C-alpha cells in the first residue's frame, strides 16, 4: 500500500466564500435564538402539547448522525479495512463537528440556555438525558484522543491506534443507545416506549452519518479538485445502501411491534394511514425519498462510473432522515396522550385531540445554523489540520479498488 500523504485544504476565494455563507447561516440562527430567548418560546411553533419542535428534529438528527460519521474511521481501524484508513482523520473531525452542531441547537433551544452550567454540574444519574450529556462530552474526548493517536508522529503513540479506534467505536454505540433511549424509555406515550428504539437509532446513525460523510467528502474533493476514486466512492455508496436498508428494517420492526398491540393501533393508524403530514413524511419522505430511491441509485450500474448517483443518494438519505425524525419527534407528540384508554376525552387543555404544530422560521433557522456549524467546523479543521489525503484515487488508497478506467479526477469527471 502506498503511503498516504495529507495536506491542508487549499483554495482562497472559495474557502472564504464558503465560510462567509456558512457564517451567515450561523449568524441567522443566532439571531433567531436571541429572538426566541428574548420573547420566550411563545414566538415559536412549540406549545404545551408539542414541547419539542423543529430544533429537536435537527438536533437529534445531527447527534445521531455524528456517531455514524465516525463509522468510516472505525471500519478502517477496528475492522482493519485498508480502503477506509485514509479517511479516518476526516471522519473523526467531522463526527465531532456534527455533534457540536447538534448540541448547539439543543442548548440554544433550552428554556434557560443561560443555565448551561447548571446542566453541566447538577446530574440526576437516573436520567437518561443526564447520561447523554456525559456521553456527548465523552464522545468529544474519545474522538479527539483518537484523532491525536492517528496524527501523532510517534510510533509509541501510533501503536495504540486500534485501541483508540475501538474505544471510539464502543463509545459511539453506547451514545446512540442513549439517544434512542431518550425516546424508547418514555413509558407514557403511545409512539415511544419501545426497546427497539435503541438499535433503530444505531442503524439510523450508520445510515445518516455515512450519507453526511460521503456528501461532504465529495464536495470537499470536488471543490479543490483533488483525485477521488470511483472505486472508493462506489464501495462507500454500497455500504451506505446496506445501512439504509438496515435502518428501514428497524423502522418497520418498530411499527410492526406497535401494530400487533391493540393499545397502540390507534397511534399506528394515525401515523401510517392518517393521511396527515406524518403519513406523507413517513411513506413519501423516509420510505420513498430516503430509502427506495437511494437504494436504487446506490446499487445502480451508473454508480460504478459516476459520482452523481452516490451524491444524490446521500442527499436523499439526509432528507429522508430528517423526515423520519420529524415523524418520530413531532408525530409522537401530536398523537394525544392516552389517559383513559378506549374513551373519548375533552378539556379546555386540548385533551383528546390531535395536536397541531407549525414550525416557525426562527426554529428552522436555528436548526439550519447547527448544520452549518458542523460544515464550517469541518471546513475550518481541514484548513488548519492535515486531515485530507492529497489523493483518494483508487490506486493510492487500495490497489484492489483500482480500475484503470475508474481512476479519474473529479475535475475531469465534471
Amino acid at each position, binding site marked *: 500500500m502506498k503511503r498516504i500523504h495529507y495536506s491542508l485544504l487549499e483554495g482562497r476565494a472559495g474557502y472564504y466564500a464558503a465560510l462567509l455563507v456558512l457564517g451567515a447561516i450561523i449568524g441567522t440562527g443566532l439571531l433567531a435564538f436571541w429572538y426566541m430567548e428574548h420573547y420566550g418560546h411563545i414566538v415559536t411553533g412549540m406549545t*404545551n402539547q408539542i414541547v419539542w419542535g423543529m430544533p429537536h428534529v435537527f438536533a437529534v438528527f445531527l447527534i445521531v448522525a455524528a456517531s455514524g460519521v465516525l463509522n468510516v474511521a472505525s471500519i478502517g481501524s477496528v475492522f482493519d479495512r485498508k480502503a477506509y484508513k485514509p479517511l479516518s482523520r476526516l471522519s473523526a473531525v467531522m463526527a465531532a463537528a456534527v455533534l457540536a452542531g447538534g448540541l448547539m441547537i439543543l442548548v440554544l433551544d433550552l428554556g434557560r440556555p443561560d443555565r448551561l452550567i447548571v446542566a453541566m454540574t*447538577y446530574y440526576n444519574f437516573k436520567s437518561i438525558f443526564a447520561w447523554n450529556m456525559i456521553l456527548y462530552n465523552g464522545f468529544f474526548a474519545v474522538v479527539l484522543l483518537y484523532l491525536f493517536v492517528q496524527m501523532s508522529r510517534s510510533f509509541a503513540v501510533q501503536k495504540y491506534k486500534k485501541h483508540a479506534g475501538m474505544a471510539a467505536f464502543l463509545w459511539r454505540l453506547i451514545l446512540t443507545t442513549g439517544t434512542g433511549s431518550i425516546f424508547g424509555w418514555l413509558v407514557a406515550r403511545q409512539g415511544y416506549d419501545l426497546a427497539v428504539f435503541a438499535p433503530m437509532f444505531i442503524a439510523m446513525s450508520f445510515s445518516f452519518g455515512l450519507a453526511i460523510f460521503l456528501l461532504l467528502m465529495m464536495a470537499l474533493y470536488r471543490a479543490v479538485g483533488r483525485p477521488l476514486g470511483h472505486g472508493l466512492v462506489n464501495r462507500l455508496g454500497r455500504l451506505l445502501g446496506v445501512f439504509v436498508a438496515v435502518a428501514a428494517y428497524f423502522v418497520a420492526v418498530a411499527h410492526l411491534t406497535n401494530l400487533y398491540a391493540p393499545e397502540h393501533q390507534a397511534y399506528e393508524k394515525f401515523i401510517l394511514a392518517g393521511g396527515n403530514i406524518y403519513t406523507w413524511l413517513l411513506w413519501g419522505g423516509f420510505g420513498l425519498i430516503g430509502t427506495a430511491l437511494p437504494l436504487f441509485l446506490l446499487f445502480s450500474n451508473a454508480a460504478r462510473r459516476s459520482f452523481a448517483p452516490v451524491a444524490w443518494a446521500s442527499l436523499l438519505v439526509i432528507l429522508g432522515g430528517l423526515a423520519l425524525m420529524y415523524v418520530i419527534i413531532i408525530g409522537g407528540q401530536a398523537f394525544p396522550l392516552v389517559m383513559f384508554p378506549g374513551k*373519548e376525552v375533552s378539556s379546555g387543555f386540548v385533551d383528546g385531540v390531535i395536536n397541531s404544530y407549525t414550525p416557525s422560521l426562527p426554529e428552522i433557522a436555528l436548526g439550519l445554523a447547527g448544520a452549518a456549524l458542523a460544515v464550517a467546523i469541518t471546513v475550518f479543521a481541514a484548513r488548519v489540520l492535515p486531515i485530507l489525503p492529497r489523493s483518494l484515487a483508487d490506486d493510492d488508497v487500495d490497489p484492489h479498488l483500482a480500475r484503470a478506467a475508474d481512476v479519474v479526477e473529479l475535475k475531469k469527471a465534471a
Partner: protein
Amino acid sequence: MTDTSLSGKARRDFIKAALATGGVLTLAPGLMLLTTGAGGEAAAADGKPAVDPKKRWGMLIDTTKCTDDCDKCVSACKEENGWQAEDGSLTDVQWIRKVNVKDPATGFAMSLPVMCQHCANPPCVDVCPTGASMQRVDGIVRVDMHICIGCRYCMMACPYKARSFVHEDIPEERKKPHAPMGKGCVTSCDMCAHRVDVGQIPACVEACDKGAMMFGDLNDPNAGISKRLAEIPTYEIRADLGLDLGVRYTRLP
C-alpha cells in the same frame, strides 16, 4: 468562665459549619442541592424538619359528586398560584383542568379534575437531567425553579399532561412568591406545598363545595382520607403504569 466556654463552643460550631459548608461547596455543589431536594426543604426555625418524611400527602376525589359544569377547584388554583389559561390555549400555564370523559361503547360520561398525580414513582423526576424535577419526602412532586433548565423532558415523560412550560413572562401583578413561574422553566401543581407546610389544605380542596375532594396523610391510618380509602374502592389513572399515585378517584370511566 461561662461566657468563655460559650464563646468557645460557638467558635467550634462556627468552624465546623464553615468547614462543612466549604467542603460541600468545593467538593460537590450538585450533591448538596440534590441532598436538600431529596430530604425535603430546609429545616424550620425550631429545628424540626418542615417536611415530615413519615407523611405522604394525597388526595381522594369523589367523582360521583363532581359535575361537568363546576370548575371551582380550577378557579381557586388559578387565584392561589397566579396562573391564567384561556380555554383551549396551547401555551398558557395550567396546573389543574377539568377533563370530560365519555365511554363511546355505553354513552356513560363524567367529569373529573386532573392535576399532577404526585406519583410515588414519578417519571418526571426520573428523567429530569438536573434534578430540578424533584419529590419531597412527604410525596409532593414539584419543580425546583432554580435549577430547571427548561429542557421539557419531564413534559414528554408525564402521562397526565400535568406540566406546563412557561412560554412568556408572567405579568408582575400575577406573580406569587410561593409559586414562582419563570419564563423558560417548567411548572406544575405542587399540592399547594406552601399551605400544606403550615397546616392548611390545598386551595382546590378548600374551594370544592360539593365535598368531592379530600386531602390528607395517606400514611396515617387515622386520617379521614385513609379511613375513606379503606371503605370504598378507589382507582388511579393509568394504574397500569405502576406509578403509585398520590391522587385517587372513587370512579373512573
